[in-house]
């Protein structure tokens, strides 16, 4: 027991040692230390590492950072709240008194740390306030870089938008250097390449006296800006396409068929990404998030639709390649096709008469393709659909891409417990039925014809800083040159010959090739597609225009395509 006592005494000595030490520090030398603590206050000023800027293919900035002036108050230095409030009212005439009171209450809980009063007050007001700091010592102006989407909604389908980081995300991402004030990309390029775009914050540790005046700098950590991104997008073309679609719902994609570079990608309805990074836009943000028309959804890649008649390109290819038809094969169209007790109509009531495949493409004759499709069979059609890149993601560098659906007999049986009917094949051949595609898949299909049979990987990011990022990914799908030539001829007739369904897309001086599509929906209004490429001989661009509930492909979609082609020519991309 003596040992236990000895232990107790030893540990009690330790305690006493501390008590004596504390007494000395706090009671005896207390006033000395109090004095010292008031003389050297340390302030940490964060230096923001700005987010990387985003440029289009001509080097024009699309997304930039601008300086935002934020007003803060430091409770302990502010003194008389009423006086400060009166002063602020002279500068911000419409200031909310209740909100200001709330801010002051909040500031009490962090008496030495700056509390935010108002964000983004503008340069003029910032200057006035900075000049008044001697009279109103608690005020502080802090500058921050803020994201600016120079072209607003026009580029929003490509750029995406930013959002504030949530607590849950911070838990997971803190180890990678994220802090509580960070913004993180939520869609588009901002999300896909968030890692490259993020800058690194630095900081300044300065010693200030009790009035907040800087005495000396203790340490600096430099901030690093994020990497600049150079896109393949031509912003003038992008803007034009966005204006062309106007209030309609739909999309436009313009691509280089050889390389996969995306010149323009527009999805409508869209939104202005600036609302997410500007203070006071809460209502607009809510509206955008809850809008039943889904403006935040990128219809080019994230929505699947029945392709309608544009799919006849695949049916033609399947039929020609498998030898089931040749350029001399012809079928008679009298406006309808009978299958057992069912009648499948052609879009032209009186029929097209006798046609071969070239004319059938030109007129988009359903009956011709009903015949062809049956001869080829659904399995082969499905095979070629997959070859042309349907049913899987294209790999475009935007988040949220859907794969679409390429149906076949086994799929149908697994899902619906029904066998495949001939009627299904008929629908398949004209791009209706269970088939679902995204607009980006459609433009890739047409690129395949344009470039001589290669499946390209569409991409938007060309360079990060000075480093080439794009890897031109092409895959040969194995079509005979004859097939390609024949389809090309058919597509040219669609636009350039009288009677073709896509004549409204004709461009003087340039041979445009294309295919219209009218996809039936469950309402009485159809979706309109128009996809194609130009110039015929050596294609430099390919495109797809899709108008939700836009009537026939030969209507609005083709007209829009025609205008866009003019602009493309103007931009020198042809």
């Amino acid at each position: 027991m003596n040992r236990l006592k000895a232990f107790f005494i030893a540990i009690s000595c330790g305690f006493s040692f501390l008590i004596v030490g504390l007494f000395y520090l706090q009671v005896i030398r207390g006033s000395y230390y109090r004095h010292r603590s008031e003389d050297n206050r340390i302030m940490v000023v964060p230096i923001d590492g700005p987010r990387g800027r985003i440029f289009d293919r001509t080097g024009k900035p699309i997304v930039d950072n601008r300086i935002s002036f934020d007003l803060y108050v430091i409770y302990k230095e502010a003194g008389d709240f009423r006086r400060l409030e009166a002063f602020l009212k002279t500068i911000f005439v419409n200031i909310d008194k209740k909100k200001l009171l709330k801010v002051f209450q909040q500031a009490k809980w962090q008496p030495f740390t700056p509390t935010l009063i108002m964000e983004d007050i503008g340069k003029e007001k910032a200057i006035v306030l900075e000049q008044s700091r001697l009279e109103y010592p608690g005020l502080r102006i802090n500058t921050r870089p803020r994201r600016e989407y120079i072209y607003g909604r026009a580029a929003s389908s490509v750029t995406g938008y930013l959002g504030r980081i949530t607590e849950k995300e911070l838990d997971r991402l803190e180890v990678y250097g994220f802090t509580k004030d960070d913004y993180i990309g939520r869609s588009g390029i901002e999300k896909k390449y968030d890692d490259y775009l993020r800058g690194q914050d630095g900081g300044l540790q300065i010693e200030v006296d009790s009035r907040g005046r800087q005495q000396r700098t203790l340490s600096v950590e430099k901030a690093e800006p994020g990497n600049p991104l150079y896109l393949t997008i031509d912003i003038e073309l992008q803007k034009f396409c966005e204006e062309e679609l106007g209030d309609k719902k739909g999309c436009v994609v313009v691509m280089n068929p050889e390389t996969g570079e995306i010149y323009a990608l527009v999805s409508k309805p869209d939104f202005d990404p600036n609302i997410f990074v500007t203070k006071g836009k809460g209502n607009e943000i809510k509206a955008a998030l809850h809008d039943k028309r889904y403006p935040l959804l990128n219809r080019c890649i994230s929505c699947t639709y029945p392709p309608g008649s544009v799919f006849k390109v695949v049916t033609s290819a399947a039929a020609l390649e498998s030898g089931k038809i040749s350029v001399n094969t012809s079928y008679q169209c009298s406006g309808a096709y009978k299958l057992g007790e069912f009648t499948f109509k052609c879009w032209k009531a009186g029929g097209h008469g006798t046609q071969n495949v070239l004319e059938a493409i030109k007129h988009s004759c359903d009956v011709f393709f009903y015949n062809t499709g049956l001869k080829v069979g659904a399995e082969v059609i499905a095979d070629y659909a997959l070859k042309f890149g349907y049913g899987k993601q294209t790999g475009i560098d935007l988040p949220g891409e859907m794969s679409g659906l390429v149906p076949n007999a086994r799929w149908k049986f697994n899902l619906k417990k029904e066998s495949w009917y001939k009627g299904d094949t008929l629908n398949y051949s004209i791009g209706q039925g269970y088939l679902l595609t995204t607009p980006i898949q459609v433009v890739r299909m047409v690129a395949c014809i344009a470039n001589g049979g290669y499946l390209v990987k569409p991409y938007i990011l060309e360079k990060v800083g000075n480093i080439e990022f794009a890897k031109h990914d092409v895959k040969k799908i194995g079509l005979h040159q004859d097939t390609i030539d024949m389809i090309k001829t058919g597509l040219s007739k669609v636009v350039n010959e009288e009677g073709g369904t896509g004549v409204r897309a004709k461009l003087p001086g340039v041979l445009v090739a294309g295919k219209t599509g009218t996809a039936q929906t469950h309402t009485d209004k159809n979706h309109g597609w128009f996809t194609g490429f130009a110039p015929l001989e050596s294609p430099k661009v390919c495109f797809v225009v899709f108008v939700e509930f836009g009537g026939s492909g030969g209507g609005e979609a083709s007209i829009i395509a025609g205008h866009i082609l003019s602009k493309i020519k103007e931009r020198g991309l042809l």
Partner: protein
Amino acid sequence: MIRRELRNVDIVIITTVATLFIIGLLFVYSASRSFTGNMSLLLVKRQITWMCLALFCGTIAFLVDYRRLIDISYFIFAAAVGFLIIIYIVGEERLGAQRWIQIGAFGFQPSEFMKIAFIITLASYLGRRKANIHSSMNMIGALAILSVPFLLIVLQPDLGTALILIPILVSMVLIAGVNVKSIMYFIFTCIIVSPFFWHFLKPYQKKRLLVFINPNIDPLGSGYTIIQSKIGIGSGRLIGKGWLCGTQGQLNFIPERHTDFIFSIIGEEWGFIGALLVLFLFFIIVYRGIRIVQATNDIYGKMIGIGVIAYLGFQMIINIGMTTGLLPVVGVTLPFISYGGSSLVVSVIAVALLLNVGMRRSIF
């Protein structure tokens, strides 16, 4: 069977620990206010989450008969050593040292768990030699058990956690009944040999020792922390500046202020009175703990009890000593109060073991 013994549970210790934890939450909040901004409760929430985990582990440590733990002590020891070795392979460097394993949002520090493993293992060893406890061979045996974890931890490098093992060892060996001479020889040797270890210290550790003697040789570097911590505590004077009103703490001035240096904030905001309060609460734990050790007749219980008291008591002394400049800076946390999951969980398990021993003392 257990219900009868629950009457023996030391409620005082439980309330004291709870009070210390709540004080800890208050000051983690104050300390982290200025860098968490509008997520000000972030660290507090995490600390509460850790406490839930700690209570879960603690309950197990409390309900399981401690003698069972003694039985599997070698397994526990091997597991703890195993974790320390794993750290070399997958651990991350933070603040220049390899001490943590990251699991999701939480860091896990195996050296902390080594303390518990060491206490249990040494208790098992000494208890078994009860018959011949006087012999100096036991001292050597105890040192052998110390050597492997001590080396592994020191090489991380984590001098503080390794050093705590020494007073734990000395206390346990003393109460066990090993002859005093060999203990004295050991302490003596430590003092003589310590200058030679100077070579093995890393540069920053050397600086810390130099700066302990005279902080002003490097006022903006290693001496910085200690000067500012003293200013913080000293400027609290008798009654402190008030919660959340500490200027040294709020102004991002003391590094690690929510972990190792949290006592600076307590001293600054609650003054001498607050500091005494914390010391008093720890003293209660030590006092009640010693009473438990005195009351129990089982040697294993005594060993575990004294090991836990030595761990909590000396770690507190070293931590507060460090923040007041009375001892050199070695990185140890203030039990129950400092922010940090591993420290909290291990401290709670330690107290649970102490209560465990206290509860079952009437069996013997």
